[in-house]
């Protein structure tokens, strides 16, 4: 395989290799535990975590937090083409082109956007992990086959792949999630395979094998759980990408057809029409996307560093 792709692979593999360093059942302070302790002292991690937690809470409690119904076209009758009523009592961030409360839409939008991000990432991770386990556990021709397939997927640029899949599946929000999920698959497949290979020769794996435990049991009770931390790191980073990618697909007209449903990407895309006189309608959802993506990236990067022995001081 080529070095450029190889480089991407190396990064994944480096992350995967760390799983091998995790001792099976504690034995002093586990790496995960010490990583967590380091994480708590890392201001970057704290900022990232706070951002993520705040947005998750907002999404979870959207109905309690939102001052209004995000679908209610409350001030529509005051909207004229070329002028939108500004912020006022009960509408702290003003209303959109259809007289709907922007704040409420942003709050409810966090649900939809995070849901698209989480579901597509989880879907991508699960499929990717399954492929990775297949390759790592069975080795041989299964390994070759799966890894060739992953290499092929890696050779298609992400957005092109997402577009092809959206076009194929038609325009609905599930298609959107699947399209993003597929672009995530190769990373996770590689990650899991790498981490399994790293563990295959570890002492505890050899020990359990010597005890006559079945291979599938070893995989599911020992190897897989130990591979989870790099998967979580990658998942956190992938979430940021997924949310941005969803916005891009919305912009290209491949998003949810029910555009009344508040979602940041769709809000951002539809605000382009009024950019010249009401840029806030684009800036608010864009800020939400940027901040959330930043939050997940900060958290993911500090998790990665915390788990990486190189960065231990």
């Amino acid at each position, binding site marked *: 395989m080529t070095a450029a792709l190889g480089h991407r692979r190396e990064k994944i593999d480096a992350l995967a290799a760390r799983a091998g360093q995790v001792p099976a059942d504690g034995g002093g302070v586990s790496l995960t535990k010490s990583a967590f302790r380091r994480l708590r002292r890392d201001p970057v991690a704290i900022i990232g975590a706070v951002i993520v937690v705040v947005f998750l809470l907002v999404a979870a409690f959207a109905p309690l937090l939102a001052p209004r119904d995000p679908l209610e076209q409350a001030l529509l009758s005051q909207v004229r083409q070329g002028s939108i009523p500004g912020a006022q009592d009960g509408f702290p961030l003003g209303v959109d082109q259809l007289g709907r409360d922007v704040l409420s839409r942003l709050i409810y939008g966090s649900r939809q956007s995070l849901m698209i991000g989480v579901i597509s990432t989880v879907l991508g991770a699960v499929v990717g992990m399954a492929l990775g386990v297949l390759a790592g556990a069975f080795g041989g021709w299964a390994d070759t086959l799966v890894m060739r397939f992953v290499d092929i997927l890696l*050779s298609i640029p992400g*957005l092109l792949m997402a577009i092809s899949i959206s076009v194929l599946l038609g325009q609905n929000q599930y298609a959107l999630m699947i399209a993003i999920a597929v672009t995530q698959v190769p990373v996770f497949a590689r990650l899991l395979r790498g981490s399994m290979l790293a563990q295959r020769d570890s002492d505890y794996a050899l020990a359990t094998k010597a005890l006559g435990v079945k291979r599938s049991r070893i995989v599911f009770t020992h190897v897989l759980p130990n591979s989870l931390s790099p998967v979580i790191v990658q998942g956190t980073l992938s979430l940021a990408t997924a949310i941005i990618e969803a916005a891009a697909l919305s912009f*290209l007209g491949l998003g949810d057809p029910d555009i009344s449903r508040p979602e940041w990407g769709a809000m*951002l895309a539809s605000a382009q029409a009024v*950019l010249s006189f009401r840029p806030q309608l*684009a800036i608010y959802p864009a800020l939400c996307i940027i901040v959330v993506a930043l939050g997940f990236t900060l958290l993911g990067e500090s998790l990665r560093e915390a788990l990486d022995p190189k960065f231990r001081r």
Partner: protein
Amino acid sequence: MLRFIVRRLLQLIPILLGLSVLLFAWLRALPGGPAQAALGERATPEDIARYNDAFGLDQPIIVQYLKFLGRALRLDFGTSSRTGRAVTTEFLERFPGTVELTVFAMIVAIGIGIPVGYLAARRHGSWIDSTSVIGSLLGVAIPVFFLAYMLRLVFAVDLGWLPGSGRQDVRMDATHVTNFYVLDGLLTREWDAAWDALVHLVLPGIALGTIPLAIIVRITRASVLDVVNEDYVRTANAKGLANATVRRRHIIRNALLPVSTTIGLQTGLLLSGAVLTETVFAFGGVGSALREAISNRDYSILQGFILILAVMYVLVNLLVDISYGLLDPRVRVR
């Protein structure tokens, strides 16, 4: 070295075959199958039968695949359902624009990215370092089309400093020889035409260059940090080599290896169609053609463009790989 290149080329074959299988499957899976995709929903059963016959779609699937592969190898992807012209013609017309844009964007990204990344690493922990880290994180987090719209709004519309769309002023009756407009202007000595085309690259180039810029800063910084802590740098310093020599011979040269890989990878990605940026800037390249094909459901264009672009992406990666092998002998052994 030759063996290395040959081996890499051979490894390419399964990837390309796999790609073609995926694309063939995609085409088969389109709503209504390939005939409907090519003929549109109003096609009568007779039309479909005629098409299936002409393209052998009633034959066993493996035969169909081989035929598809044969056409792809001859660069025959059919005709666009919108313009009725050959997909390859459309591609060749659009591609020079994308190349120019990519080159401009990468010059911006490399020109700023490497010095900033290097500086950030050398002043590890300083405000330059933290700013560059935050900046590079932000660069990846901003949706490209939002950035593009904002750049246009501010610099093209409000301030009016730079053109905000197209590849060249339409009133400019410029001669186009190669369809690389900047180059054409230089070749024909129409300096104003070349300048105009160049100025049209600035805003989309910046928008497009942001992500590679952010990535290059990060990789440069990380790799310089890695190298500075390597034993050979410490040895070099210890044996009293001048700082400048250590910097030039040991740090920069070694640190740039992973950076060059990233540059290659990013170039490949940009070439594969800046769909979002080109759309916002109405820039006549491959990306905006893809966008139009999506909204017109022009499956011939989508299919042909995606295959050509994916193959190109793989080939660019191969080139990067080979040059990497030239730079770093260790790779060859692996």
